[in-house]
């Protein structure tokens, strides 16, 4: 069978430049000026899984992302990795979206691109890390959805078996297609991009689509369509009051451990 797979990609600030990121006190948004963007590693793992599936079963891999127009570079990177086509949803109307508005917008973009057997995402983005989008996307698309998928395989044309990582266990699922899978960050190592892949990317389509073409409901987009808003941002006080303990070492140790226990730190005497 040939699979139609979509992979959702988020363009995030390069962790190497985290010390240069600030938060705008007024808008409560990240100020990313001068900070390069990269594809989150978790998203690359999801893309790697999609490419492996395509290599095994044939089909097509479509990458979709929602970001400012500069993210075209990251979309091209996914094409160089081996994706067949890319769609960048980019419009001022999409700005300031929380996870629900993001999932809605991505779902509209996916519907515009056709139908898919599988939609893969990372488990969580490298910046917001809410881990909410995979499930919300599944709901928006009326598809089954799983999160933190460690591995999966096709059982038949319309069923997959997936292993999902839980806190202290794993769960096995059999899921009917189409489905949305949030792929675990440790589910595989993304391939390196080859120079030939970069050349090949020149012949692939990277479409940039605004809402004029997407025609999504405007009140469900961006900041307007986001039921979550950032609250106040304060810097926690790191002030500490010093206290000098006096006496012999034994007395100091007793006093110190007693003070720590009062502070809620459970210290137990080591059995001799």
């Amino acid at each position, binding site marked *: 069978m040939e699979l139609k797979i979509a992979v959702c990609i988020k363009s995030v600030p390069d962790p190497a430049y985290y010390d240069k990121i600030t938060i705008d006190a007024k808008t409560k948004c990240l100020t990313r000026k001068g900070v390069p963007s990269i594809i989150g590693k978790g998203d690359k793992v999801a893309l790697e899984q999609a490419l492996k599936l395509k290599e095994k079963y044939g089909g097509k891999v479509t990458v979709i992302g929602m970001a400012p127009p500069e993210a075209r*570079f990251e979309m*091209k*990177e996914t094409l*160089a990795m081996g994706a067949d086509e890319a769609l960048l949803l980019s419009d001022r109307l999409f700005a300031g979206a929380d996870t629900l508005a993001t999932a809605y917008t991505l779902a509209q973009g996916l519907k515009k691109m056709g139908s898919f057997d599988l939609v893969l995402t990372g488990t969580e983005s490298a910046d917001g890390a809410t881990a909410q989008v995979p499930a919300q996307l599944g709901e928006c698309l009326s598809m089954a959805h799983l999160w933190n998928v460690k591995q999966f395989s096709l059982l038949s044309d319309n069923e997959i078996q997936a292993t999902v990582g839980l806190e202290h266990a794993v769960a096995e699922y059999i899921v009917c297609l189409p489905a949305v899978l949030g792929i675990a960050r440790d589910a595989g190592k993304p391939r*390196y*991009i*080859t*120079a*030939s892949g*970069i*050349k090949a*990317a*020149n012949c692939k389509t990277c479409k940039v689509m605004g809402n004029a073409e997407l025609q999504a409901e405007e009140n469900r987009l961006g900041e307007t369509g986001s039921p979550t808003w950032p609250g106040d941002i304060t810097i926690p006080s790191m002030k500490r009051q010093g206290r000098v303990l006096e006496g012999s070492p034994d007395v100091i140790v007793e006093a110190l451990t007693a003070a720590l226990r009062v502070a809620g730190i459970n210290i137990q005497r080591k059995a001799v």
Partner: protein
Amino acid sequence: MSMFVFTEEQQLLRKAVREFVEAEIAPHAKRWDEENHCPIELFPELGRLGMIGTFVPECYGGVGMGYIERVICLEELARHSAGLAITIMAHQLCMGGILLFGSEEQKQKYLPDMATGKKVGALSLTEAIGGSNFMGQQSTGMQQDGKWLLNGRKCFITNAHLADVDLWTVVTGKNARGRSVLTAFLMDKDTQGRMPGRAEHKLGMRSSNTGDISCVNVELDESHILEKEGSGAKIALSTIQEVGRAGMSAICLGILRGCLEESLEFSKERMIYGKPLHKLINIQFSLAENRLDYESARLLTYRAAGMKDAGEPCAGEFALAKYAATEGAIRAAKRTIDLMGGYGVINEYPVGRFLRDALTGSTAGGTSDVLKVVIAAESLK
């Protein structure tokens, strides 16, 4: 690339190569240097990624990009391992010779495996009398019973013990003015009479292989001649001038960027007199000079590579680039060691290796004095 802006494709290539180098090369570079290990086992992977056959046309198994892209790959590799980068560079000298002067049959025979890193190449030009005096070389090729008989010894050959394909120049006669006529031959690793000799223990570029190769009564037929009898000097010169010097410029560019990045990082982290080191004005001078050395070499190198891609004569430009890059790398490495104080001479930090690599790199593909002669000659034209 226009004069100052890389194309989207070139930026993506740099990003892709950097990602690979930081993950797979950087963590091992120090050990390879300490153990004199040339990681030739990486060649197939480097070939698959397109870092070896970057400028080789797709019909010969390469990527079909240009010399700017080649410089990008070598710069990124040399940022963390100049030794591995010079291994690839020397291999590309041999490939470049075949690509520029080989027959269609020779290209089909050698290039696909070389461009993909399945086979390793070497250019055997230098002899004990000195690389700068390459017209004075003493290795000979004599015709005997319809075959060519090659004898001689080459030295300081990169990839001497690793090469599957070896491009040799030998004296095959004298012209009317009594000057040597050189002819270039291609020979395979297992050719009878071809023997790698001693392996050199070098100051720098220690994760590359350098040594002697001898030919004792090596018999080759006409099919091994590159282009034609008597073309050896032209092949050697153009390969060294426009492939070798381009490569060495790129490698020293990588070392220069290493010096710049290491000096910036160290001067931000190191606290002295209660402040970061970079607050001191003399340290700021050093950082500025490291940046200037890098940027000037970068502009010269990529300009020359752009000219090469445009098919313009660029031997003079590559001489300028190599001089600026190699001398700049030596200055920057010494300056960075000075900036770091005691830490600069501790091998836990890579700057000592950068200095050793830079000093070693200045001798390959023409010493700085030879380059000045070339630059002067180009200027006097």
